[in-house]
């Protein structure tokens, strides 16, 4: 059992958990979920489970401390004849301390486990002799549950969530097994009470959840694992491929990453649905975006939202940045001014986003790439509007929209090319080769078929992309395919599930000749 896609998980662990959950009395169902979650964690990470326990206890304590401070502040402020300003400042300082400790413990664990080696590596050439990084390994999903932990403490601090006295509920909120590996990154308000409620498994939940999971499994087994053959071959030895092949590999990698990650999210949300928990959606047809910043509102949504709520807004509304915004507005005007000043907050967001994905220069470059694009996009918006107006291009027209779609797709593929590289230097080199050195010849003369995928593999991939497009368009129009199938009755439900199972069994890239692929986001 190494992932949600292993036979042991899908055919043994998950069904057993669902049965135990349903048979348990409602008030004890949380215990089934918690036990299953910790068992899952243990199987994947063994004794490293202590780190998730440490995080749980730390946010539980921080929440209680913040709660106690807040009620004492309220009591203080309610007293007659109190210097309210001084009291506010005093209690504010204490609460900030609790916040900093609570957040610091969690980010500290993440920092030491994930980034210590990277920092040492970066500092080594400067002659800094640091103690060697501890090689403990990474607990599964630490990047995901740490963000959840931080968001809980921040929410309690701001007063948008109440502090939870129940340690077990917090433990479940952090470690719920469908979400622990690759997210989605949930907020306490979104899942905690549903996790605790022990809603019974219903027929509709079982169908919608199960079919959603099957769809995710199909996406990953048929497309992502198959594309791995090509992507692995080219990126494993990029020096021996020309620009056309590198560009194709980058495009296929983008598709692979999407099918892998969104497929895993389908499985996670499907599992949540079975247990009556609606996990937040992480994808909304990202490739239909028209700008880079819209892409990030549709791709890995919960990560983007986390950085927006806990980095972008707080940084933007902090004193110094606010003053910067005001003066920029006076100096540069109402549109360009704030856009320019937002650079500070955006830089924080994108450095964080890049590094969150991993300790490596390529991730740093990936973050900076999107920082530049999105910041420049904001700065240049008025100029671009002016140019369009002068050239008579209708910004609401289909032509302009099509241009935006294509542009964004290219931007995203280029970004993923940097992301997949083994270092920033290699990434830049490959980007240059895939653009300036692009030759279409290798795509048509048979070279493309020599890198691990044969013509039949490309045909299957192409057919599945068409299916993805159809589903994507339906969803864009607000349809809910699974809902529609449910209403059609038992035969339709069975037909859909059966079709997905047969497709996965026959066209899945597994077994002899295929290398099993680790879930891609689990290592970030």
């Amino acid at each position, binding site marked *: 059992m190494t992932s949600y896609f292993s036979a042991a998980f899908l055919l043994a662990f998950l069904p057993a958990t669902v049965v135990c959950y349903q048979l348990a009395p409602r008030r004890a169902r949380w215990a089934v979920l918690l036990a299953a979650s910790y068992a899952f964690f243990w199987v994947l990470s063994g004794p490293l489970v202590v780190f998730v326990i440490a995080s749980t206890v730390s946010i539980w304590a921080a929440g209680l401390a913040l709660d106690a401070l807040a009620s004492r502040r309220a009591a203080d402020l309610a007293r007659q004849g109190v210097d309210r300003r001084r009291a506010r400042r005093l209690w504010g300082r204490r609460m900030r301390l609790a916040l900093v400790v609570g957040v610091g413990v969690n980010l500290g664990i993440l920092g030491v486990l994930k980034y210590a080696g990277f920092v040492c590596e970066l500092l080594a050439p400067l002659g800094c002799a640091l103690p060697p990084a501890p090689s403990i390994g990474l607990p599964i999903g630490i990047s995901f549950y740490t963000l959840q932990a931080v968001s809980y403490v921040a929410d309690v601090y701001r007063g948008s969530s109440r502090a939870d006295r129940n340690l077990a509920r917090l433990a479940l909120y952090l470690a719920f097994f469908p979400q622990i590996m690759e997210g989605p990154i949930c907020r306490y308000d979104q899942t905690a009470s549903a996790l605790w409620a022990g809603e019974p498994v219903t027929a509709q939940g079982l169908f919608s959840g199960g079919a959603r999971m099957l769809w995710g499994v199909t996406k990953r087994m048929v497309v992502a694992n198959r594309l791995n053959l090509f992507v692995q071959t080219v990126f494993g030895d990029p020096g021996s491929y020309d620009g056309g092949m590198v560009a194709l590999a980058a495009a296929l990698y983008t598709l692979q990453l999407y099918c892998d990650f969104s497929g895993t999210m389908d499985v996670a949300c499907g599992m949540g649905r079975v247990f009556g928990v609606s996990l937040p959606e992480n994808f909304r047809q990202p490739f239909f975006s028209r700008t880079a*910043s*819209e892409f990030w509102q549709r791709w890995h949504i919960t990560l983007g939202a986390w950085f927006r709520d806990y980095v972008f807004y707080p940084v933007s509304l902090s004193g110094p940045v606010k003053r910067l915004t005001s003066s920029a507005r006076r100096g540069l005007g109402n549109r360009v001014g704030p856009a320019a000043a937002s650079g500070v907050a955006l830089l924080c967001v994108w450095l964080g986003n890049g590094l969150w994905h991993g300790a490596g220069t390529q991730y740093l470059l990936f973050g900076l790439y999107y920082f530049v694009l999105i910041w420049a996009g904001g700065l240049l918006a008025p100029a671009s509007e002016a140019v369009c107006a002068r050239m008579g291009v209708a910004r609401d027209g289909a032509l302009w929209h099509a241009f935006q779609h294509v542009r964004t797709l290219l931007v995203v593929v280029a970004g993923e090319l940097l992301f997949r590289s083994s270092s920033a230097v290699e990434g830049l080199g490959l980007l240059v080769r895939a653009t300036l050195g692009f030759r279409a010849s290798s795509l048509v003369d048979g070279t493309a078929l020599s890198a691990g995928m044969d013509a039949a593999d490309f045909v299957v991939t192409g057919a599945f992309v068409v299916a993805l497009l159809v589903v994507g368009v339906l969803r864009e129009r607000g349809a809910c395919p699974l809902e529609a199938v449910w209403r059609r009755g038992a035969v339709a439900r069975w037909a859909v599930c059966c079709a997905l199972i047969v497709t996965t069994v026959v066209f899945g890239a597994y077994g002899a000749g295929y290398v099993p692929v680790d879930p891609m986001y689990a290592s970030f």
Partner: protein
Amino acid sequence: MDTILDILDELKPGVDWRGRTDLVDGRELDSLTIISLIAELEDAFDVVVPAVEIVPENFNSLEGIWALVRRLREQGL
């Protein structure tokens, strides 16, 4: 309320601010515009908008923004 309308029109002309209840969800107000809007609101009404108040409910409609400003003013007094 008219002050808010003026601010919005200045930030992003050509939107029917009065009739809308999906300003955030419909992506009329992106995060950048919200930051500028907050700066203007803070100047105009002498309030401080904390980050916690930036939720869609507060910015989805003109009424929502107005309610937020009124609430913050009462708290500030």
